[in-house]
């Protein structure tokens, strides 16, 4: 058998697409089936450098034909761990694409490959591609000591391979889903939204996906590999300053630099003090409701009004733009499923309101004992009805609420209520001096304010 690969192998062939009219065979893909799998196994199970093709190889395939395809790679090495399988397997896509005249798309059991007429004419076979893979893997990863490649094109063998691969994917996904901030050393940033929110630096960790929901930690890792100088970059984790609030020195430093000094500190898992900035394209907003000392969540698809009397769109306009807004946080739907979801603020124990559609969508993520205690738009339309509902259901925030109300009642008895306020002057007290960030929060509790005109100016 001719060992020499008859086509070029190199980076320049990445992104090569083989058109139908210049295609010799179609492998796997939407009209057939296939899967790829890479496993770390004990060294005695690998015959180093061996390439096998179970079923017809390219020279036995009919021109213009369509065949199923399985790719199975076994690697061994002293320093190899099972966790690396996914990373190595992902690399298969790039390595395959280095082979001139061989197209490879996607991953796992949704792959799609083609071999060009030109390459087939030159005698390219899967066997050669296997040999090239052996070489590429060993060159790129020193830790791989032994590697063996098997291709399946026989239908029955492919079916068996797919079944085996799916079991491994499942196991891998279960592990990935359990990945937490503390399990990794590198986070990712996304600066895509800086075009309209110039100080917004999205910090993406295993427990917090980007506000738009599009960029997860895994997606970040993949993106950096594709385009290291793109809008998604690595953030070194640095020191853990507060594991509960989710404050990391690496994120603080990175955000400070990329926001041009506008943002100094970020808590990943709180909506108070130093909440993460909000872009504008977040999928949902978590908002603090001081009247009940709880947190509401509203998502983009909900067109009704929140207990504040305003809809998502109005709130989004106030929250977004890359600023830290006390008590407001733009989040992704996926973040609701995070085990660290607003953990510094009490997590689900603090959630008091959300639209029914959203509540249903993330049902599995809500602790069972909380599910019936969280009001929806049909249970509470304003702050009064929300308060009533929470009391009725014995929501955890009620206890604190009761204490506060008692204190207020006592206070009210002492002072005469003010009937009319002709002029409202906000006390300058607590406003920082010029030069420091001029941001402060005013919270009115049980307030009725009548004014002919209120003017608030930015200095």
């Amino acid at each position, binding site marked *: 058998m001719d060992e020499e690969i008859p086509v070029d192998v190199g980076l320049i062939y990445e992104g090569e697409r083989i058109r139908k009219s210049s295609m010799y065979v179609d492998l796997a893909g939407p009209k057939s089936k296939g899967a790829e799998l890479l496993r770390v196994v004990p060294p005695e199970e690998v015959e180093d450098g061996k390439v096998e093709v179970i079923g017809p190889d390219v020279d036995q395939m009919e021109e213009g034909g369509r065949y199923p395809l399985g790719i199975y790679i076994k690697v061994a090495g002293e320093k190899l761990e099972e966790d690396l399988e996914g990373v190595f397997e992902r690399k298969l*896509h790039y390595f395959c694409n280095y082979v001139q005249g061989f197209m490879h*798309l996607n991953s796992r059991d949704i792959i799609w490959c083609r071999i060009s007429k030109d390459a087939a004419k030159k005698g390219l076979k899967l066997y050669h591609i296997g040999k090239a893979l052996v070489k590429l893997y060993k060159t790129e990863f020193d830790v791989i000591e032994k590697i063996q490649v098997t291709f399946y094109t026989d239908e029955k063998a492919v079916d068996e391979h797919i079944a085996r691969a799916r079991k491994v994917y499942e196991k891998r996904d279960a592990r*990935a889903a359990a990945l937490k901030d503390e399990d990794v050393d590198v986070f990712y940033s996304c600066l895509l939204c800086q075009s309209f929110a110039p100080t917004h630096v999205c910090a993406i960790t295993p427990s917090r996906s980007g506000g*738009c929901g*599009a960029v997860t930690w*895994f997606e970040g890792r993949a993106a950096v590999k594709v385009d290291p100088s793109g809008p998604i970059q690595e953030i070194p984790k640095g020191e853990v300053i507060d594991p509960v609030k989710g404050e990391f020195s690496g994120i603080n430093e990175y955000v400070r630099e990329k926001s041009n000094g506008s943002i100094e500190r970020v808590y990943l898992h709180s909506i108070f003090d130093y909440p993460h900035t909000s*872009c504008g*394209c977040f999928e949902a907003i978590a908002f603090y409701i001081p009247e009940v000392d709880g947190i509401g969540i509203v998502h983009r698809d909900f067109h009704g009004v929140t207990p504040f009397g305003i809809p998502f769109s109005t709130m989004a306009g106030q929250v977004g733009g890359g600023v830290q807004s006390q008590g407001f946080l733009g989040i992704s739907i996926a973040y609701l499923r995070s085990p660290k979801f607003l953990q510094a603020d009490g997590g689900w124990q603090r959630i008091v309101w959300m639209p029914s559609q959203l509540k249903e969508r993330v049902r599995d993520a809500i602790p069972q004992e909380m599910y019936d205690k969280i009001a929806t738009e049909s249970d509470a339309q304003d702050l009064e009805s929300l308060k009533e509902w929470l009391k009725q259901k014995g929501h955890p925030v009620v206890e604190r609420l009761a204490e506060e109300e008692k204190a207020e009642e006592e206070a009210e008895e002492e002072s005469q209520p003010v009937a009319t306020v002709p002029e409202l002057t906000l006390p300058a007290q607590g406003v920082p001096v010029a030069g420091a960030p001029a941001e402060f929060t005013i919270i009115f509790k049980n307030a009725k304010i009548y004014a002919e005109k209120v003017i608030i100016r930015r200095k």
Partner: protein
Amino acid sequence: MIIAVSGKGGTGKTVIASLLVRSLAERNAYDILAIDSDPDSNLPDALGVEVERTIGDIREELLEKRDSLPPGVSWRSQLEYEVMRALVETESFDLLSMGRPEGPGCYCAANHVLREIIDTMAGNYDYVIIDTEAGLEHLSRRTTQNVDVMLVVTDTSKRGITTAARIKELAEELNIKFDSIYVVINRATAGTEEKLQEYAGEVGLEVIGTVPEDENVRMYDHEGRPLMELPGDTPALRAVRGIAEKIVR
């Protein structure tokens, strides 16, 4: 080479784009990709192909499915696969349809990745012909921003030339880089050409060719028959061949 064909609705922009695809395809020497990026046009019909899924469909699907994708799977490579799946492949050219504009919600990340994917894909072809709307929105936001030749199709009115000039300005404002920009006068009747050349010259535009009113085109359009099947010697096709000649050279 990337050729964008733009022009106001009703000027016959899609006719010119499809005849250009045909003119290049019949040379049997190039890999050709047609991109339909005007949701109001019917380039696939004119080219005689059926589109099952558009880039817009893929984007919407992604937004729905994203939550349920396994954590170890990247939707970036999933998108690449889906774009390839959406590609209509024929013997002489391929076609990608951009579909409807997006709904509410955030598409920044998806669009960013789609643009990369389509750019990479376009790199595989000798000629990419984009049928784009006059607003150039797709061009500025979704597909590649760099265009080698911009063709602005106009009717025989003076207003048409003014619109062409406006599209040129718009392209510059939107930072769409192009090496050259030309006007194509469509449905020209005898005696109108010279005057229009003059108008075009006044606003700094060059006319690359004039496509005559063609009874066959009118009839095929009327009957909904693909322009790829037009008789080879019909005047409009001959005129577009001449334009293709100039571009290829």
